[in-house]
């Protein structure tokens, strides 16, 4: 019995939930059923917090390993990481439990000094990659690439002030490309992803692999 639950339980849970929402969304159902549906989505949302907790624990575990084995060139960094995590957790959890939340001053100082600038910078590095990629890759190798480059240039001119100075028409032209052909170009991808969701739902209904095995 318990082995049946272990193996089929998760799939059965998924199937039942999909069927429940299928019925309640498409057909008229009594009020209590609707309210139960509201409870279900609220729970599913709150469970998301626990997934974040697990992700954090995974990162800590990942960095304990090199520290234990004294992996050369890595354990020092892992030690720094674990230290800062510990400091952050102590200040953060103190703040939350004391009622000040994330605005607890020491914790706020930590994230304002370290997290905010690092987060912004690590994305900003990408500007360098896109610059060098532009030089090396934005080349008219064939007709398709020529098309891509042409559209790219028009949009670039439309996006910056200089384009407007060169020819004021760049702004409406860019706007036209964005609102009409670009919308049309991404439409098949969106229709495809919508159908993909339906198909994933079908696979889940049939108890096939959605996650794991």
């Amino acid at each position, binding site marked *: 019995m318990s082995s049946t639950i272990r193996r089929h339980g*998760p799939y059965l849970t998924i199937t039942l*939930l999909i069927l429940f929402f299928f019925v309640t969304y498409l057909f008229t159902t009594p009020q209590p059923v609707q309210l139960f549906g509201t409870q279900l989505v609220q729970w*599913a949302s709150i469970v998301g*917090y626990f997934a974040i907790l697990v992700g954090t624990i995974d990162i800590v575990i990942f960095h304990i390993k090199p520290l234990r084995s004294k992996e050369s060139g890595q354990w020092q960094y892992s030690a720094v990481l674990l230290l800062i995590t510990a400091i952050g957790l102590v200040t953060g959890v103190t703040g939350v439990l004391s009622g000040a939340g994330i605005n607890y001053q020491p914790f706020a100082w930590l994230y304002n000094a370290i997290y905010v600038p690092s987060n*912004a910078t690590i994305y900003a590095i990408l500007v360098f990659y896109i610059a060098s990629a532009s030089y090396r890759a934005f080349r008219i190798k064939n007709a398709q690439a020529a*098309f891509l480059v042409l559209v790219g240039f028009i*949009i670039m001119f439309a996006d910056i002030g200089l384009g407007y100075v060169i020819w004021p028409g760049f702004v409406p032209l860019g706007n036209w490309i964005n609102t009409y052909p670009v919308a*049309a170009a991404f439409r098949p991808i969106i229709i495809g992803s919508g159908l993909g*969701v339906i198909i994933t739902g079908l696979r889940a209904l049939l108890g096939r692999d*959605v996650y794991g095995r």
Partner: protein
Amino acid sequence: MTAAVPIWDMFGLWIGAALTVWLFSFAFKDNALYKLAEHLFVGIAAAYSFTIAIDGILRTGIAPVQQGNILRIFALILGCFFFAKYFGKYSWIARFGPAFVIGVGLGISVTTAPEGFVLAQVKSSMLPLWTGDLLQSLTNILMTFIVLGGLTYFMFTFVPGIRGVTKVTKKTPASHLYAVLVKIGIYGMMIGFGALFASTIVSRVAYLIGRLTDLIASPEASIVATILVIAAIAYAYQHEKKTAVGKIEQKESKKNP
């Protein structure tokens, strides 16, 4: 306390500037200071996420239970299932947490995707080919072909000529039409990708502007951090020459000049 705040603020600014410069140095060369900054970032991010999740559980999970919404306790129980994966014997329980999330997630997305992602897009693709205005009409015709071409491109199984893979395929009108539509689909997508590429440059440059704005705010810190990072990069080059990888690289470069 009042006297301490500016000192801490100053210290925070310096750390922020140093981290900015050190992380930027990665684009030039991987070095020790970059790694230090990266690990500080990941460490604090982990602590931050953990804290904010605990905060969230208190606000949306435990507080309602205290206020009398007893059913909310199921959310907490389902959440605790996630931790079962760390206890070998009970790790099978851990699959029920994700199963619940997947079930609800698919349940609400499968029912809304047909209208939101398929039918709405189909409806707005039904454009009149002649509206009386030449430019609008040409635009509609262009859009129609791009959409139809793209949809054809993403068909994988029911494609003309596919069953004759082993035989010599004959050109039928259907396969000609298919080839033309696929070509239109590819070119249509290139318009989209070109626009996307150009827009991406806007975003990435904006990030850089944002960072430089902050660096200008604390010039002394930025300059000190830059000098440190130049030293670190120089050290990384020196170190690389000494290590085995560096030696192999040098040998290879001698072999193939």
